[in-house]
């Protein structure tokens, strides 16, 4: 087995929550391989930001995309070859800011993919501006007097948009996070994991999350229950909030077809085109 690491120099700040995400993901890959999902069939993408550096650190095929566009990139991969398991690593600025429309539509169409949201509440790599998920009042360089907008609730929006798998994890709870990742990737359809990611440089929330997260005792049984849970503020529940079966986009689009595997030959195309060209 090849290692999952690359030779790329890791440039995350020491103590960054991204390390925990990287580690949990590597463990998830190993678990998935045990379950028969070979890593060759896993392809990744990433936006641009601190979170996205994970792309360079993982010895897995993929496309390092643009800020906010990884969610579209990854869908393109799957549409071309549905036997791939597609996963993207997205920042909160990435998936809920620049790329918001792609995220919502991926959920809406129950696209069979996994979106791992590194929610650190800032645009970290561009030096700490508020994001769509930052609390009102965030003092970043673009909002020195404090941001004036209320945050979105990513999970609530995803639920409303039609996501069929919704979860939240915390890198401080490795085994739990790994398990969520495995289940999200196994899920057929759009799975969304919000990871509460401490960024030691801007908002060191390790302590806060350690004290305020709480593993969900039971997976909620309905949409409404899930919605209630993702909106809790007293404690931050972590775990899987919602999981339902629904047909996925590519199945609805072309059933069992595989555009690159089943490509129709040149000769056959010519034959079929005759109808229009003669």
């Amino acid at each position, binding site marked *: 087995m090849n290692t999952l690491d690359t030779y790329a120099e890791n440039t995350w700040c020491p103590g960054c929550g991204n390390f925990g995400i990287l580690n949990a993901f590597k463990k998830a890959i190993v678990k998935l391989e045990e379950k028969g999902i070979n890593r060759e069939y896993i392809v990744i993408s990433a936006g641009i930001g601190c979170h996205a550096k994970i792309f*360079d650190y993982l010895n897995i095929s993929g*496309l*390092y995309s643009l800020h906010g566009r990884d969610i579209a990139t990854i869908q*393109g991969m799957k549409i071309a070859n549905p036997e*791939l398991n597609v996963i993207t690593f997205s920042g909160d600025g990435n998936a809920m800011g620049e790329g918001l*429309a792609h995220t919502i539509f991926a959920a809406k169409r129950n696209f069979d993919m996994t979106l791992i949201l590194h929610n650190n509440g800032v645009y970290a790599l561009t030096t700490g501006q508020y994001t769509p998920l930052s609390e009102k009042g965030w003092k970043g360089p673009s909002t020195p007097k404090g941001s004036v907008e209320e945050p979105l609730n990513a999970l609530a929006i995803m639920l409303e948009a039609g996501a069929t798998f919704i979860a939240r994890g915390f890198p401080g709870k490795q085994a739990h996070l790994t398990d969520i990742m495995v289940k999200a990737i196994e899920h057929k359809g759009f799975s969304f994991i919000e990871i509460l990611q401490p960024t030691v440089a801007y908002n060191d929330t390790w302590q806060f999350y350690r004290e305020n997260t709480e593993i969900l005792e039971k997976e909620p049984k309905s949409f409404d229950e899930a919605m209630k849970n993702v909106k809790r503020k007293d404690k931050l529940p972590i775990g899987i909030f919602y999981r339902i079966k629904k047909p996925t986009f590519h199945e609805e689009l072309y059933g069992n077809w595989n555009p690159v595997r089943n490509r129709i030959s*040149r000769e056959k195309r010519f034959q079929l085109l005759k109808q229009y060209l003669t």
Partner: protein
Amino acid sequence: MKKAASVASQIFIERGRQVFQMDDYMSLIRGGHNFSVISTATRDIYSHYMKADLIINSDKRSYEMHADELDKNGLIIYNSDEIDNAEGIGVPFYSEAKKFPAKNLLYGVGAVAILACSIGISKNDLNEIIKREYPHFVEDNISFANFIYDYVFPKLNNKFEIENGDKKRPILTGNQSIAFGAIAGGLDVYFGYPMTPASSILHTLASQTDKFGLAIVHPENEIAVINMAIGSAFAGAKAMVGSSGGGFALMSEGFSLAGMTEAPVLCVLSMRPGPATGVPTYTEQGDLNFALNVGHGEFLRIVACPCSVKEAFYLSAEMLDLVWKFQTPGILLTEKHLSESSMTVDINMENTKWAEPKYHKNGNYKRYLDTEDGISPLLFPPSKNVIKWNSYEHDELGITTENPELITKMHNKRYKKDMHIIDFLKQLKTVNVYGNGGPLIFTYGSTTMSVLEALHYGDIEATIIQPIYLRPFPVWELERYKDEPVITIELSKMGQFTSLLKEKANIKSKNLINKYDGRPFDPIELAKKIKEVI
């Protein structure tokens, strides 16, 4: 009216004739002023003619707008329920139609009947045509058609005797031709967000998914379109996208991503008058400079522009092949006039290119291997090898770098391909030349057809030079014209093509004939203009 026009074209086609059909319509769904012009000949015909032999109007506004477009031997038909006593032949369209439930749908059938009568098609044959083309309300359609036929028969019977042509040809719009050409060239997936005049590529392909095993996706916006296409290319699919200027502008960032990742993606850009929303359902050639320079940063691109519906077919396949061969984005540039006009075509599929990249054979894989020609072999997932495409500057394996030597090296690697693209293009037809002798006329895209037809009409001897490829610009073919006085013809206020000729090939236009009112040139008008300057 579009339906009636296509039936009319079909009638000519069945008689072995060639047809050019131009549909002029406003940006609205019902009503307004729409018309179609059909020109037909027993030779290759490259344009509609605004001066018509037969004009059929169903309302007053049309009559007023088109009455002066009648040829001196022509005939104009008007709706005598809306106008009394005009020049031409009045037909009581409305009062007759209102006897039937589907009254609004009947005008088209009436127009077909008039045409049939005027070219000597029997009532029997007409009824067969109607049965085939208008399957709803067949009875009503036939009785209406027969009434009209009989009504105009005395004045019109076989007034325009026409010869039969040599053979029956298929008729396609430019967009159908692009869609079919791409299919013939190996297309697997198409992403598109509707935008006139590119939408019908999406529609044509969407109607062919099952037959050709294509994946056709209309996602949330054009940014998704281009980025999905790049993702599909990563997974090994021949991907194409299409839009008009505004939607294509939204793809600018993604286009640059294709440059950096060396993603083979073919973009169709069908121009309409701009800037901004402009005039959505009309034609112009105003996006040339944008197409040649779109995307931030330095990377290669291939841009080509077909002159005719037929050339669009082969060129789509050829461009698909080129972008895959050289792993760089490409633009198939065209205009509303080509995209949405219909022409009879003779296509030999065997002459179509089939996209075939350089594949990785065996051993360790480096996505961005710095080869002699700059082309790194491709490999697709799933694979034991790790395949990394990267939007950041990267090393050969595709890992991000900020190292100055690597930045330089990778710039060089990508740029190296330029020479090879040029060498390859030198073996292809990159410039069309029509005629030999007389003044030199440079033009491009569908305007070429207008010029061809104008020369025919005006009986003008001239040589038309039409670069098919615009980037790399085929200077090797154009060298010889450097010191000649030339005429340039294009649909652009600023003369973008004229500047391109001067800037890249040192060819100086002494006369620019341009037009930018949203309408293509009419051959008669254009012939006059050409005569003025030669």
